[in-house]
């Protein structure tokens, strides 16, 4: 076996914070062969990004490599300085960042930025660099590259920006690419295109790649070897098939269980030991609807136009029965958030009507809806748990707020009991109630958000990507919680998401939205197994599954 391209040996990275030193990486040892794509998988705080940053020497000032070495072609990266370091950045290894739009300079044309990267490392004329930049844009398959050369980052979509980032990263033919969550925040279809492109380019140019991601499915699709990290340690290293079929470490077992596959059910998302009483709740048959019961929610020909622009939503109709769960999926800009906010009566529809429990509520201005008796029946769980809690409210205040406003409870024992009951139902430890949001973890904040939404005992819960910002293991718990609430309280769930795996598990019916128009709807299982329209098929196929048939995209080329 030849010498590996990159060899990290017993790496320790320490950050100095006010609470003293924090070890972010504690003893990571791994090797990357030339031309290989290695998946570095872990949840937030696992130290995967820090490992990547340490390798490229881009750690911020508070972080320091305290022990171990990083050998790149036999040379210790941690000891480089001056010209050697400059050569290392870009020419020998380069990095692709999570948010492409903020990684690009907003006031410089993208062609210029690529040319700048080339000129830093090569002594060629500006014209030559420009020509090379054009060539690179072509290589990353940007349509009409001549025109795009002069475009600014804000004129390009997220996926396009990430292609430009890839072009910059490969501009000097580095031997190693480090991609840190390169597709997080992109739509599934865009994610697939960008990752396919990255894999193709890396394979064609013989570049080794470290793919840092929280998404096991994504790593499985593109990497032949996956390294799993937990709290700064490397817990398991294996080929995807071995990892999924026979995970050895308990953490890997949990992670594999929590990652949804094309066939998993909600109860599968935790390991058997943790499953407990949940199974019985799921097995209980649904109470039959009395015949002739009117549907809980009827939406008729809903439309929304902002200012004088094109319609964000056009002609949206649906019905929901009590206790039913419906998924609303689509890519960003498909109008799913607008629709959910109209149904939640936070914004006014331009046309159409919303009938809740037999009464029209679509014509009550959203400005006055807080006085409507139905306000407490329709509640919402918001997207990013980090932004959905008032920073000046404790967890208790957050949950108590709707109880005070909508149920009319006053400060006192009755209120405290209701809040504690809600906290218990969502599995929030009671001793966390006096804490402020910044003292809670992401999963705990998500639970507070759900507790607040169910506090007033609503009949319809609208969920706007409630798990998008959460780690998979936390997502698994939150999904089970939602499903249990639906079954126990006969709560109707309208689940807005771009994560099709999650929708398929949680929702009985699914509506696919594109450009504000419904393209397909029906039973979730049927819709995903046998999509009728091309668009839905594209969406379904783009989901990276941790399927056991390892279809390595790079290998197939």
């Amino acid at each position, binding site marked *: 076996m030849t010498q590996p391209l990159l060899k990290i040996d017993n790496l320790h990275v320490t950050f100095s914070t*006010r609470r003293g030193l924090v070890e972010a990486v504690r003893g990571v040892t791994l090797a990357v062969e030339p031309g290989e794509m290695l998946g570095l998988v872990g949840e937030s705080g696992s130290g995967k990004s820090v490992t990547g940053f340490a390798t490229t020497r881009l750690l911020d000032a508070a972080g320091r490599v305290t022990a171990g070495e990083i050998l790149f072609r036999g040379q210790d990266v941690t000891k480089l300085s001056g010209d050697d370091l400059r050569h290392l950045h870009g020419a020998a290894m380069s990095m692709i960042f999570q948010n492409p739009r903020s990684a690009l300079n907003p006031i410089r044309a993208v062609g210029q930025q690529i040319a700048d990267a080339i000129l830093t490392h090569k002594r060629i004329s500006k014209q030559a660099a420009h020509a090379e930049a054009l060539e690179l844009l072509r290589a990353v398959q940007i349509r009409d590259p001549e025109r795009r050369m002069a475009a600014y980052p804000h004129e390009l979509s997220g996926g396009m920006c990430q292609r430009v980032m890839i072009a910059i990263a490969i501009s000097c033919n580095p031997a190693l690419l480090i991609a840190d969550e390169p597709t997080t925040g992109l739509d599934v279809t865009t994610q697939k295109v960008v990752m396919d492109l990255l894999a193709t380019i890396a394979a064609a140019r013989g570049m080794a790649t470290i793919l840092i991601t929280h998404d096991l499915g994504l790593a499985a699709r593109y990497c032949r070897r996956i390294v799993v990290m937990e709290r700064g340690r490397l817990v398991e290293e294996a080929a995807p098939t071995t990892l999924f079929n026979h995970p050895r470490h308990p953490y890997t077992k949990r992670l594999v269980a929590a990652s949804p596959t094309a066939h998993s059910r909600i109860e599968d998302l935790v390991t058997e030991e943790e499953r407990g009483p949940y199974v019985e709740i799921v097995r209980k048959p649904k109470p039959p609807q009395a015949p002739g019961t009117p549907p809980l929610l009827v939406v008729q020909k809903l439309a929304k136009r902002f200012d004088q622009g094109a319609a964000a939503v056009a002609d949206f109709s649906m019905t929901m029965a009590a206790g039913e769960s419906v998924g609303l999926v689509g890519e960003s800009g498909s109008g799913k958030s607008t629709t959910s906010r109209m149904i939640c009566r*936070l914004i006014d529809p331009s046309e159409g009507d919303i009938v809740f429990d037999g009464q029209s509520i679509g014509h009550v201005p959203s400005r006055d809806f*807080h006085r409507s008796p139905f*306000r407490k029946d329709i509640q919402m769980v*918001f997207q990013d748990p980090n932004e959905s*809690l008032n*920073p000046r409210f404790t967890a208790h205040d957050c949950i108590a707020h709707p109880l005070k406003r*909508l149920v009319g409870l006053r400060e006192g024992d009755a209120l405290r009991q209701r809040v504690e009951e809600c906290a218990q139902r969502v599995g929030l430890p009671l001793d966390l109630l006096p804490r*402020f949001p910044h003292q809670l973890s992401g999963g705990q904040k998500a639970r507070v958000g759900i507790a607040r939404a169910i506090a007033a005992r609503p009949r319809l819960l609208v969920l706007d990507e409630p798990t998008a910002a959460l780690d998979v293991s936390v997502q698994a718990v939150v999904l089970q919680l939602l499903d249990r609430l639906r079954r126990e309280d006969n709560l109707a769930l309208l689940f807005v998401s771009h994560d099709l795996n999650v929708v398929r598990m949680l929702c009985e019916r699914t509506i696919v939205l594109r450009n504000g128009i419904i393209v397909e709807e029906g039973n979730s299982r049927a819709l995903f197994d046998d999509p009728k329209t091309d668009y839905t098929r594209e969406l379904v196929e783009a989901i990276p599954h941790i399927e056991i048939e390892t279809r390595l995209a790079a290998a197939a080329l």
Partner: protein
Amino acid sequence: MTTTALRHSIWILRGNPLTGVAAAGVLSLIFTAIFGPWIVPYDPIASNVSQALLPPSAEHLAGTDQLGRDVFSRLIVAARLDLAIAVSAVSLSFVLGAVVGSFCGYAGGRLDRTVGRFVDVMMAFPLFVLAMAMVAALGNRVENIIIATAVINLPFYIRFARAEVNVRRNLGWVEAARSSGESHISVVLRFLLPNILPAMAVQMSLNLGWAILNAAGLSFIGLGVKPPTPEWGIMVAEGARFISTGRWWLVAFPGLALMLAVLCFNLLGDGMRDILDPRMRT
């Protein structure tokens, strides 16, 4: 919460000890403003021509002026008036600016555009000239100095509150407040305003120094407090006549007092920004 906030403040102060010095300076300024008349060695208004224009000495720490009044005593007593003008002017513009700005930032649309253009017009004026004109038109009284100072500060508060609310209005917790049954008005007043208060407090501290300068400036040009009331601006104005004859202490000490007051408020504002910046928290 209070203990963590305290620990956080101490951590910041250790990295930026100047903030502590500035806080001490502001506290002693407030102390002199409250207790000044009781701690001064001489009557600040009583003239004594036999003692006129004495240079600084152990007896008269900052010398005496042309009427034989002790400059040091006048400096101490003036703190109350200068601080009172600055604090009331800044509070006035803060309350008005925060409310108007918050509603503009939350509502957007036509209200926001109208108020925004109005603010732009105001800022296009030389603000000190505007204050001069207002005091001249309304009359040479302390209330009018306060009103004029408040008005010329107003645009900054409106803009600041507008920007701070604008970035928060689409956050989940704002929408959550509405789905919990709050009206638009109570969302602004009871949810958004308290959240922008820390940032506004920083702005206020930075602004206080400026307001003191402004009040002193108005007095300096004769539009403001009238002699013989001790006030830093008037003291500088009156002392300016004696610079050419080498009586520097008449101007230097009130000038120094002004400078220190402004500096302390500015440094405190900077330090508060560090303490209150959520990104500095763990």
